[in-house]
């Protein structure tokens, strides 16, 4: 179906990203790999959100609601880490 060409391209991109992170395991373990794995995951998330979940078309309030959950989770993570990362440092 012609109309599905763009969706197929999106899928191809997603599978390529997956192949990238799978292939990264061929290299020896290294510190940058964690960041890379998460970065690839975030790219997949962005692609799915924009194209499959149609956030590219739905602007404004929908995008704010979509971003709110992640933003709030970030607040939780940052402040909890403020405890764990500083334990034993200050007395």
């Amino acid at each position: 179906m012609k109309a599905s060409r763009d969706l197929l391209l999106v899928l191809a991109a997603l599978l390529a990203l997956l192949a990238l992170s799978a292939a990264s395991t061929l290299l020896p373990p290294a510190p940058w790999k964690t960041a890379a794995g998460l970065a690839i995951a975030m790219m997949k998330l962005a692609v799915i959100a924009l194209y499959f979940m149609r956030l590219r078309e739905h602007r404004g309030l929908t995008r704010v609601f979509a971003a709110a959950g992640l933003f709030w989770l970030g607040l939780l993570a940052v402040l909890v880490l403020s405890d764990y990362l500083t334990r034993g440092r200050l007395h």
Partner: protein
Amino acid sequence: MSDDAPPPGYLAAEPGILAWFRTLDHKRIGLLYLFSITGFFMIGAAAAACMRVALLSPQGNLIVSDTYNRLFTLHGVVMIWFFLIPAVPNVLGNFVLPLAIGARDVAFPRLNLASWYIFMAGGALVLYAIAAGGVDTGWTFYTPYSSTYSNGHVMAMAAGVFIAGFSSIFTGLNFIVTIHRLRAPGLTWFRLPLFVWSLYATSIILVLATPILAITLFLMALERGLGVGVFDPKIGGDPLLFQHLFWFYSHPAVYVMILPGMGVVSELFACFARRRIFGYRVMACALLAIAALGFLVWGHHMFVSSQSLYAGLVFSLLSFLVSVPSAVKVFNWTATLHRGSIRLDTPMLYALGFVALFTIGGLTGLFLASLAVDVHVHGTYFIVAHFHYVMVGGMVMAYLGGIHYWWPKISGRLYPEWIARSSAVIIFLGFNLTFFPQFVLGYLGMPRRYAIYPPEFHTLNVCSTAGAAVLGLGYLLPLIYLPWSFFRGAPAGPNPWDATGLEWRTASPPPPHNFEETPVVTAEPYDYPPPP
């Protein structure tokens, strides 16, 4: 008293008892919640009465410590999750919100009814846990006691709270979408009544905080049920992680409790001083600021938990910051009274009581935000007094004020004014007699959650129990005269208070579809004539 009855409205629209349990009408759902939470309040109050009677004797002559532990757990769980959190949003919010914005109903009426059933399912589990013997962990369920050592019915209690949490989430979701999408023509954001703003801010918290409670209880239950865990020190887990996750929800939860009350108080002050709210936009923004900042302060519950001192400093600073918008609100309420034509009707008495008691509670919150002071009063009656001042002196009084204010709209009838005013005064006096001595007790060192205490605290405890008796009487009176007025009160008419607000432009009680014609808004909120 005339024989005229008010128009039948929504109360008579769907006949029969069963219709109440299938209703999609937000007004009826609000009443369903009213009955439920009143029942839960009585259960929580009964536990409090037992505790206060037990505390009449320093040696704990009435009940053993284990029973006492189960009582304060019951009191906390029931009062917080099944009374305070749903009270204003689910009773007054459900009833008033669509009316106040000129809508027919909320955005998702079936979800609204489902929320009530979910709430009742959670409540049933909690009642089962209580009847089966209760839980002794405190409402805070700290690990590893709750997950490993406690012998109570922790799973059932936690499951009940977990389920009730979804009721909160769905209510918040419904309100957010309703306020965004269903406002009447001309009703721009800055023409909304502050009660609506408060429901919006509350709903944001409900939606973003409650899921964390859910996952925390789930992980605790996993640890308890399967003997595995992430909070278990024996395998390298950290009990503090439970506290971080628990309080990430539970601190914003207290703002869920107070923000709707603040919204109600703004309505009451405007109406009964016949003045525009001073600094309306600032008041609206303050509600949102409290909601947002309230998410960043939870570590002040953990100052002595062995979290890092650095984190403690950060949380202390943020806790001071969150008091600023609350203080701004108190100043603005006071300024609203200036040169107003004040009518000391019952709702106004409750609103004035709210400001006085919330201010005291809030100021003592500043003491607790100071790390150094909190180290000494953490775990004492100072904390107990602080949160009862804001939650009972504040929130419950705001709730009662709102109930009395909107009672004519809900029932179509007026309550008896002088009994109602007397009850408000009795509640105010009883409350202070109960809880002020507890500030002193805490400062002097009496720990909370103890059934037995040193004899030097005896007198103050007797004072506190005497106050509780007076407070109980004060709460009992509305339970009598409000139902009475439902059947025998004088008809109220559409706008007995001569208040602004869209809900007063329709009949009392309203027809099922709320408005005969969708109202169009052209005026600013609280459009009272300026003082001469």
